[in-house]
């Protein structure tokens, strides 16, 4: 667990899109062991029983993180966040602004503008953003509760293509870094945790797997493995073979 705004959170977060049915989503959520699921506000119809995505999740004790997916600028995202606050009684928001229709790349300028305003409006802001270390610093300075840089293009299953930049982001961050997009295999999630990410958010890889429940299980175990590796402080890779620990022996001899 790690914390955002004094709330303990699981290290594997799930998205709710692309599933064949709400039941399958719920089964995958259970198998993943997560306690936090993000839901696109655009798919929620207020005052309609088709809030059926939300209520079963809440009954299962899962925290809902509304997201502003579909918003193309700061203005729309802020409006969506305010609407979500009213509908779901939460001041948490996953900020997503992607005007680019083809690759759904997050808009750094509009995201920063929206983040600044949402923080002023009292939101706990978790921005989905490019893997740009400087942008992540700016978002942190704006008061975001976490940063959510993408591992690779959203939905691409390509894994940690942005590894070099993510390492810098993690090194610099004073807020949790949640790697948000492009994770296609449990091993990608494991590597993200090993690298020092606070958590990962996975949707496409689980929702579009032939067996989403198995995929969710795999991601849960991978996240555990990544955390265990971190706790174990495994030795870094090396080009040369190291027989045992010759330096230690020498230092012992010299001391």
């Amino acid at each position: 667990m790690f914390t955002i705004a004094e709330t303990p959170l699981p290290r594997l977060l799930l998205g709710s899109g692309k599933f064949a049915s709400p039941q399958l989503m719920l089964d995958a959520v259970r198998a993943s062991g997560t306690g936090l699921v993000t839901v696109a506000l655009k798919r929620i119809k207020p005052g309609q029983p088709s809030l059926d995505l939300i209520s079963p999740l809440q009954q299962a004790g899962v925290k809902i993180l509304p997201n502003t997916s579909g918003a193309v600028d700061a203005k729309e995202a802020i409006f969506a966040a305010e609407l979500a606050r009213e509908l779901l009684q939460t001041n948490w928001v996953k900020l997503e602004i992607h005007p680019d229709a083809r690759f759904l790349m997050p808009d750094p300028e509009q995201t920063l503008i929206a983040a600044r305003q949402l923080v002023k409006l009292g939101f706990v802001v978790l921005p989905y953003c490019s893997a740009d270390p400087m942008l992540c610093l700016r978002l942190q300075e704006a008061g975001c509760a976490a940063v959510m840089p993408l591992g690779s293009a959203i939905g691409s299953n390509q894994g940690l293509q942005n590894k070099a930049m993510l390492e810098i982001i993690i090194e610099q961050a004073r807020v949790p870094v949640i790697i948000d997009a492009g994770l296609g295999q449990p091993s990608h999630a494991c590597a993200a945790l090993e690298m020092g990410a606070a958590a990962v958010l996975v949707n496409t890889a689980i929702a579009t797997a032939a067996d989403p429940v198995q995929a969710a299980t795999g991601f849960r175990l991978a996240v555990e493995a990544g955390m265990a590796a971190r706790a174990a402080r495994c030795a870094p890779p090396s080009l040369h073979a190291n027989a045992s620990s010759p330096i230690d022996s020498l230092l012992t001899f010299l001391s």
Partner: protein
Amino acid sequence: MRSFSHVLAQTDWVALQLATFDTAAVERALTASTLSLTDFQALLSPAALPRLPQLLEKARLLTTQQFGAARQLFAPLYLSNLCANECTYCGFSMSQAIKRRVLTDSELIEEAHAVKALGHDQLLLVAGEHERKVGMAYFRQQIPLLKPLFSRLMLEVQPLASNDYRELKQLGIDTVLVYQETYQAQAYAKYHLKGKKMDMIWRLDCPDRIGAAGVDKIGLGILLGLADWRLDAVLLATHLRYLQQQFPYCQFSIALPRLRPCSGGIESSFPVSDRELVQLYCAFRLLAPEIDLTLSTRESSQLRDLLLPLMITSLSAGSKTQPGGYQVAPQSLQQFSIDDDRSAKLMAQRLTELGLQPVWTNWHPAFGRG
């Protein structure tokens, strides 16, 4: 401003028409991570037909990755069947002796509520092309009546000017559809005999005007059966690629309707078989994994059910293709005959059976776009 008609004028059609492809070219296209237009053409070629299973598998994979199980449902609402054009393939052409109707305010509201009652929340407004009686003045009056009822409003009418599209966006239109029918000037002239629609360039540059006005989404298409469909498909792909570069913030959808029997209409001289239609849809999915592909109710329920899980992401259901068809005048003549006449509810049920998720709403009306 440079527009698509200039791009088309510079396209070497002869080379496109003469190009032949072998199995190796098809293999290359099947393994490419992004398709060039040449790859796309290879996938449309007869050489690709034996590889249809691989094409389908890749299309399925890309569709699943991009859209998961979500499938958008919408309904067309015909505003009017008045038309000032003569198109030899269309049942609404001006010379056709059919009863003409333009929905009045109260009829429109009645129709809209009838569509709403079927479960729909995304509405496509359709009208024959009649600038004087069903032009901006009419839209200005009617769209505000519909806006509060639907989360997404789409429009398929005559090509308009940039300023008009800007105003329509303000009024609440999220998507504009304008199908070129055919990109081949000679064929275009052969089918479009009277009216403004004869002006091919005005139509060709219409998506440029829609994009420049900042409309959220543009629907493109060709009418299969009018001319060499392979050539039309490559030109449509060229158009899509051009528009995606011009307007990176705009979304796109593509529909590939086949010519259907209609009152007084012609028979197709360029028939497209089911197999070729599937090949064509596959090629577009591989070219553009991110766009919506729409399949009309003019296709059979059997074909629709087979293609839906593989690559179709947006579909109409329970459609009536005449003004007043839902409530006001259900007996009147349709624009074209429908094959898949399942109701919206049945269609949604079928989607669920197919392991797909029917999506009625994809945009929060209160987000306030438009």
